């Protein structure tokens, strides 16, 4: 148990470095080929259209667990190299009274992320792409937290722990890495790993929140994962 805990602590401390290493590694690999941000010179037009996508991981979370999100994205394709992205979604949590802590937690709110991806594959115009990207996210949400009545251990009176309509907000940033593969015609499938970090947050005077729409659970892991169905328009 101690060993597992220390491993988790080690991973927690080292994960930022690993993600940075990955991004640097990919950047340097691409840079050596043709420059990370340099526009490839060819006859392909600069504007290549749009793509819309939906995240299946958030959808599965929503149906299989007590939190999750419906999320869609609009991506602009600039020369198969640069991809400005807007991601919109609705995050929900409905954690019914916990068996151990007797706590329930409810929230439902929209969120957005904006940012851009860069195709770091050597052949920019191939059917498959490798992305590195960044995002800025924001959500304003309300939480309802309730606990079944509990007895004060010293004074023995019954107390009702209730927080209703607590207004909260959060700004966060993400660094991500992803792969997008063409399946048939305009249909693509892709996954993304996201390293998230809170920039600013306001939970009033309640302490912390548990699930933040678009950001996820505020546990010890800052990593997120999405699996997207993408259609080129």
């Amino acid at each position, binding site marked *: 148990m101690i060993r597992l805990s220390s491993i988790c602590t080690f*991973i927690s401390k080292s994960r930022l470095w690993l993600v940075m290493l990955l991004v640097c590694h990919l950047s340097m690999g691409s840079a050596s080929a043709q420059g990370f941000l340099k526009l490839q010179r060819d006859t392909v037009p600069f504007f290549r259209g749009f793509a819309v996508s939906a995240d299946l991981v958030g959808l599965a979370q929503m149906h299989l667990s007590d939190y999750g999100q419906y999320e869609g994205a609009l991506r602009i394709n600039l020369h198969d190299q640069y991809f400005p992205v807007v991601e919109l979604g609705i995050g929900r949590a409905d954690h019914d009274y916990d068996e151990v802590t007797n706590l329930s937690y409810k929230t439902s709110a929209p969120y957005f992320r904006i940012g851009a991806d860069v195709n770091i594959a050597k052949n920019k115009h191939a059917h498959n792409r490798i992305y590195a990207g960044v995002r800025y996210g924001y959500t304003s949400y309300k939480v309802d937290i309730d606990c079944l009545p509990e007895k004060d251990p010293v*004074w023995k*009176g019954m107390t009702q722990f209730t927080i209703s309509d607590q207004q909260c907000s959060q700004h966060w940033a993400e660094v991500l890495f992803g792969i997008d593969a063409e399946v048939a015609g305009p249909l693509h499938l892709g996954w993304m790993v996201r390293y998230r970090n809170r920039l600013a947050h306001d939970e009033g005077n309640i302490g912390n929140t548990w699930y933040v729409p678009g950001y996820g659970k505020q546990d010890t*892991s800052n990593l997120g994962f999405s699996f997207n169905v993408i259609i080129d328009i």
Partner: protein
Amino acid sequence: MRRLRLLPLLTGMLLMMACSSIDCPVDNVVAVNYVVRAFDGETVVADTLKDTLSVWAVRHGGTDTLILNSGVDVKAFQLPISYAQPVDVLLFQVRDTLHRVQTDTVWLSKEDMPHFESVDCPTRYFHRLTAVRSTHVRIDTILINNPSVTYDTSVKHLHVHFKK
């Protein structure tokens, strides 16, 4: 070859995603810290209560429960605070070396604030002390030094001055 170089990094990232743990605070005691003080002219100085101190909490219905048992040479002590009562009533009993017993009642008024960490962590209440008063059989003065009662156990919330 390039794909092979990426493989360990991707594997490491996937392993990290699987490693998440509950992050409840370890220091999660919410209690009131009292320190014994005395006036030295205009200055407030640390003091020690040479007699024996016991404290009871008065519950609803008039029953009580012992929350500090026979403290001697008391310089500071920590007492629990109720979750959500507007006023806590405490009985401070001082027994001297001649077995004479003197009892004071302390009324501690407060505001209670629910504090949430995670659905996996037990609930807590933080408090803001708003007023304190007492009888003056053995207690000379009792004052709020810092009204904020949280997980921070280093804060000295109340100063108690006992009569000599």
